[in-house]
């Protein structure tokens, strides 16, 4: 609500270290932010700002420190070092006042299973001191938004995973927050539910709500985020708009070649010189290039015969895998 | 959970398990679980009888014996001891047949994990009931041992109080498990306790003979399962059991247990096979 009025369109394109002007209006400012659990450093000194009206994404493999960062921003975990200001206040002292203006969608639904769908929304609104009548009004319209109106009187226990997720998001909106924090909002959802959710988030953004999203779905990040950071081992591996990142860390196109036998694939490694960068996977070769068709023509000209070949645009996933590696992290 | 459902027997001697009935594997799960927690559970099984006997039998007994000299021909400790044994069996049975059953269906979903193996619903039920019977044997055995230690056993007949106690427990656990399998949440369990277990504990002759109840209430007490369990255990421990009345007690308890088991077969199938 307030965010829309304070929106600064000029700051959108700025990366993680924007101008002094952007810092003034930023909803979240972190400088050298650190989170330690005993000996383990979950977040190892990161800097970023989130400006009003944007959708800011945190990408990273499991254990990269995304959730720890979210929890610090939502004043549910004290920072171990550095400074953090949220909505111009200090989470250490102003937790309740900050949280009054945040909406949080945690990684795991924390709905009240014993209560009905409607009661979950009303009760959550009451935690924000919203009068009962107003809470009822808001709950009704949010149920519409989340397409749960027919289930209003049902116990949460009986909802599907997708419905619970939608309810959690509706619940986070009941206080009409300036900043909506979503920690892996679509993990575990089926494609229909995921697209429905993206659609809802996009509409919220249009209404001026600032979004902060963590995800490991690159498609999600590309669709939703104006700016994003890729986090790995508690630090930022990269930051920028999705297009900037692709431009910086990948090529415009990728050629994927699959060969019949490992021997044929081994012979094909000489193709590396036709592209800017080559990646060899157990079952295929990836050639990163600005012009995929040209590279493919060269492959054929040299007499290689892959069993399958694919020219596609480079995606954020290519950037992500390049920066964080292909090994499993946990 | 995946680990736990691998019953210990399966790893040790696969050739033997083939010959064994399937429900033994389900029993194996509960034994396996108990092995991790037996220490705390055992200390409860030993200390609770001791504490109850000391407080009610000795503490309160001092007042009773001073005032009326004896209850039913014996000291208050001797009167209340076997009664407490039977009521302890009831409480173990009810607690094992409520929350753990609901947990195995809904919270931990142990039953579902078992049903994903060759086990059938009836094996799951039989295994769990067999486990409760084992638990009851353990708890009743300890209790009886303590009664003997207090010098309350009057004759060799007291040994039969062990199966009598187990039977009392089984008469409760089968019907309660049948009921628990129909529940969506644990609210009803507190009702079972407050309107079932507690009044039975208080009015079935554990603490005073039911002849002291108002006349109209005595037949009601007669109709309750705990009364039969208490009367049976008490007469066996004190050595004044008569065949005729004992058969009535046993028949009542067996009928209740068997009826409950039959009901549980239905409710388990209805709940677990969808």
């Amino acid at each position, binding site marked *: 609500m*307030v965010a829309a009025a304070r929106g600064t369109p000029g700051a959108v394109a700025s990366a993680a270290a924007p101008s002094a002007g952007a810092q003034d209006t930023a909803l979240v400012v972190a400088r050298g932010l650190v989170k330690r659990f005993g000996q383990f450093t979950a977040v190892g000194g990161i800097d970023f700002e989130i400006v009003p009206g944007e959708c800011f994404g945190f990408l990273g493999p499991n254990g990269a420190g995304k959730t720890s960062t979210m929890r610090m921003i*939502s004043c549910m975990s004290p920072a171990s070092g550095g400074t953090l200001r949220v909505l111009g206040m200090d989470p250490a002292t102003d937790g*309740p006042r900050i949280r009054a*203006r945040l909406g949080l969608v*945690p990684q795991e639904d924390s709905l*009240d299973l014993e*209560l009905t769908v409607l009661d979950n929304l009303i009760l959550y609104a009451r935690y924000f001191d919203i009068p009962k009548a107003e809470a009822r009004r808001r709950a009704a319209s949010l149920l519409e938004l989340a397409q749960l109106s027919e289930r209003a009187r049902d116990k949460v226990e009986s909802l599907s995973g997708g419905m619970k997720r939608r309810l959690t998001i509706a619940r986070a909106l009941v206080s009409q927050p300036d900043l909506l924090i979503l920690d892996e909002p679509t993990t575990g959802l089926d494609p229909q539910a995921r697209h429905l959710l993206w659609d809802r988030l996009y509409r919220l953004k249009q209404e001026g709500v600032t979004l902060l999203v963590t995800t490991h779905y690159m498609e999600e990040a590309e669709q939703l985020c104006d700016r994003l950071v890729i986090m790995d081992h508690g630090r930022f591996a990269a930051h920028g708009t999705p297009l900037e990142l692709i431009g910086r860390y990948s090529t415009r196109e990728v050629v994927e070649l699959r060969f019949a036998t490992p021997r044929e694939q081994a012979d094909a490694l000489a193709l590396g010189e036709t592209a800017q960068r080559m990646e060899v996977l157990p079952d295929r070769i990836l050639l990163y290039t600005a012009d995929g068709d040209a590279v493919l023509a060269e492959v054929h000209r040299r007499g290689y015969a892959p069993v399958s070949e694919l020219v596609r645009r480079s995606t954020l996933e290519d950037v992500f895998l390049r920066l964080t590696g292909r090994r499993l992290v946990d | 959970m995946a680990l736990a459902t691998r019953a210990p027997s399966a790893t040790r001697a696969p050739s033997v398990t083939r010959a064994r009935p399937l429900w033994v594997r389900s029993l194996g799960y509960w034994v396996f679980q108990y092995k991790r927690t037996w220490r705390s*559970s055992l200390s409860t099984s030993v200390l609770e009888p001791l504490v109850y006997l000391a407080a009610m039998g000795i503490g309160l007994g*001092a007042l009773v014996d001073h*005032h009326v000299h004896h209850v039913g021909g014996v000291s208050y400790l001797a009167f209340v001891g076997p009664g407490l044994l039977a009521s302890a069996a009831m409480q173990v049975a009810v607690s094992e047949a409520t929350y753990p059953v609901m947990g195995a269906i809904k919270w931990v979903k142990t039953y579902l994990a078992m049903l994903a193996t060759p086990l059938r619903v009836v094996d799951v039920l039989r295994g769990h009931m067999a486990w409760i019977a084992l638990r009851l044997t353990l708890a009743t055995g300890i209790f009886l041992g303590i009664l003997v230690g207090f010098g309350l056993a009057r004759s060799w007949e007291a040994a039969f109080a062990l199966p009598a106690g187990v039977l009392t427990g089984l008469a409760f656990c089968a019907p309660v498990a049948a009921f628990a399998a129909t529940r969506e949440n644990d609210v009803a369990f507190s009702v079972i306790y407050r309107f079932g277990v507690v009044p039975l504990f208080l009015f079935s002759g554990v603490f005073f003979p039911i002849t002291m109840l108002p006349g109209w209430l005595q037949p009601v007490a007669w109709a309750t399962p705990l009364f039969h369990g208490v009367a049976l255990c008490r007469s066996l421990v004190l050595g004044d059991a008569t065949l005729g009345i004992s058969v009535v007690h046993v028949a009542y308890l067996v009928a209740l247990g068997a009826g409950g088991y039959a009901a549980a077969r239905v409710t388990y199938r209805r709940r677990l096979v969808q």
Partner: protein
Amino acid sequence: MSTTPAGDTTRGTTSGTTLRITPAALLGSRRAVHMVERNVYVYRRSWIFLVSGFFEPFFYLLSIGIGMSSLVGPLRVGAETVAYPVFVAPGLLASSAMNGALFDSTFNLFHKLKFAHTYDAVLSTPLTVADVVAGEMGWSLLRSGLYALSFMCAMAALGDARTSWAALCYPEALLVAFAFSAVGMATTTYLRGWRDFEMVMLAIVPMFLFSATFYPLSVYPGWLQAVVRLTPLYQGVALLRGTDLGSFQWAMAGHAAYLAILGLVGLAATRARLGRLLLP
């Protein structure tokens, strides 16, 4: 929200760091009321749970009145002789206040902490850990108040209340509930799994049986009397019995102080522990 004009918060950045205000007192804020509200919402759907609790004291008092009364006979308390049910009733009131408080503060709290993650949602709103603790305590006292009331009705109906001083037993029963609720919550924050509850029961059952609820302390040998006197339930039983019989002694002020201090310490410990558990 109402405490902060939304407009100035982005700029007024310096005041927060210089003036570190920790949420004052153990009472939490006005928002703690919403925690009570949550419980009302939950229990609205399982009212039978609450209502069934009213019957328990009736059963106990009835059983004692019908059976034990004639087995035990009248007892001497101080200078006077009272019927057994009159002796037991205030002790049972204290015990039932303890049991009710412990049930809520152990089983229910553990479920909410470890399985339902109820407080994770609550703490993402303006509510604080102090509010959670205060709210849960408020609910516990509300519930205990209802039970104590039903118990006292049963006492009056069965003729077990001796003097009009008995009315004072009501706030005293709440004090007992407060102390045990607080200690129960603090203990629960240390429990690892359901099986740890057996240990909790191992502490509660002997206390319930031995703390002079069912017979006077004089039954015990001297050393055991000293041990029993130290237990919080004994303190509660002695306080309520003295009040019910209208025989006041200075020691009773000590009992009340004991329970109050225990409750406050428990509350403070709960707050510290929950803060560490919920906001790591």
